[in-house]
């Protein structure tokens, strides 16, 4: 039987909410797709667009940015900064041939372990039919042979 494709999702999680939500999902033993590799950041505003591009270049099939709900950011409006970047990043990525489903922004409070787990499940299911991204092996490798 063919194993279903397990996408690699790099998750940038805010320390004050979504990282704790992921922790909670773990301690509450919620079952969800083992596809997200969490990276803790102090706030979603810390996530430079470069982090996302680099993750996609280096082998991620998708990137999840997760932070506090609007109005609840520990640094008042870091998440609104992140939201503005995210909206523009999507326009840019579309032009570069990266499907919308591959980069997502999620709000999950510290108590919302279930919501975070569901978001990972949902994103995994959405990326599956798109297949692997493999930016280096496909897009960049083709450039290197001059083809």
């Amino acid at each position, binding site marked *: 039987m063919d194993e279903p494709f397990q996408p690699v999702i790099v998750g940038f999680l805010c320390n004050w909410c979504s990282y704790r939500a992921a922790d909670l999902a773990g301690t509450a033993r919620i079952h969800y797709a083992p596809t997200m590799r969490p990276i803790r950041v102090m706030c979603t505003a810390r996530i430079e667009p470069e982090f996302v591009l680099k993750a996609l270049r280096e082998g991620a099939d998708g990137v999840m940015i997760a932070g506090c709900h609007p109005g609840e950011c520990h640094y008042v409006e870091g998440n609104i900064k992140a939201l503005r970047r995210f909206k523009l990043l999507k326009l840019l990525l579309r*032009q570069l041939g990266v499907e919308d489903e591959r980069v997502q922004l999620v709000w999950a409070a510290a108590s919302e372990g279930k919501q975070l787990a569901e978001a990972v499940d949902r994103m995994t299911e959405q990326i599956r039919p798109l297949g692997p991204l493999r930016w280096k092996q496909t897009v960049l490798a083709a*450039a290197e042979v*001059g083809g």
Partner: protein
Amino acid sequence: MSKLKFAMYWAASCGGCEISLLNIGEDILAVDAAFDIVFWPCAADFKYKDVQGYPDGYIDLCLFNGAIRNSENEEMAHLLRRKSKTLVAFGSCAYEGCIPGLSNLTTKAATLRAAYSDSYSGDESRTVLPQPVTQVPEGELHIPLFYETVRALDQVVPVDYIMPGCPPESHQIAAVVKAIISGAELPKPGGTVIGAGQVAVCEECPLAKNVKQITRFYRPYELVPEPGLCLLEQGLLCMGPATRSGCGALCPRVNMRCEGCYGPLDGQDQGARILSAVASVVNVGKAGEGEAEMEAAIEAAMETLADPAGTFYRFSMAHSLLQRTRF
């Protein structure tokens, strides 16, 4: 003492870099006094076979301008690397792809179609696409192979120095050339940027920033900016925050947005950096409004940006993190 050997070569470029070197004024006489030209298709009649005949490392200084867009560019990059002691990626095309690199946002097929069949001046009934090999009665004709992806020089061969700019500013070229002639010690080679600054264009820009937020962007022809005020805060997509200094903020000084021709600062992706700066000037609507209204306000402002990828990476697409579009 015998003179130093000088070469300059153009690959995929416009020729502006050659002009910029000639434009250094009377300092060009010092170049002539210090160097023997051994290859420079724009200015002197040497052939490729002359270069092939030189011993390796024969050329002391080679300024290579132009991106790598076809097989001829690539061959010349390898040849000149081998024959040169010091190879400089001269100007934005060699450094980061520049305008030719914008075709990385589309495909080879679409580029050729635009040039050879969809152009207004062409006669569509007679469209002939360039063929690498053609049979004629006299034999076989070969032309260089056009590549799918434009690359920067350092993505093909190692370069010693990089001189950014489209084209590099004359005073910067003159300073570098004089330093070489005087035997002054240059920074350690290895893809090192010379002839440019270490801060963003904004730092050299005299226009006033007021932390103003905007609800839409304008293309240059849509707005006559107010003098004295930061262009980005007026809705013109100025690349100053994400662009390396070195030109003295030439464009904003005359109320034109910086287009980004000096490329990114060390270790940065120019498009990603300007994206953050642009996002930070976008108004999110009135305080206390709901999330949906806020998102709508942001989206409406972003949608007035005509071509984010082509604008943010106008000069650095080929050297950016993702390098090209996926298709």
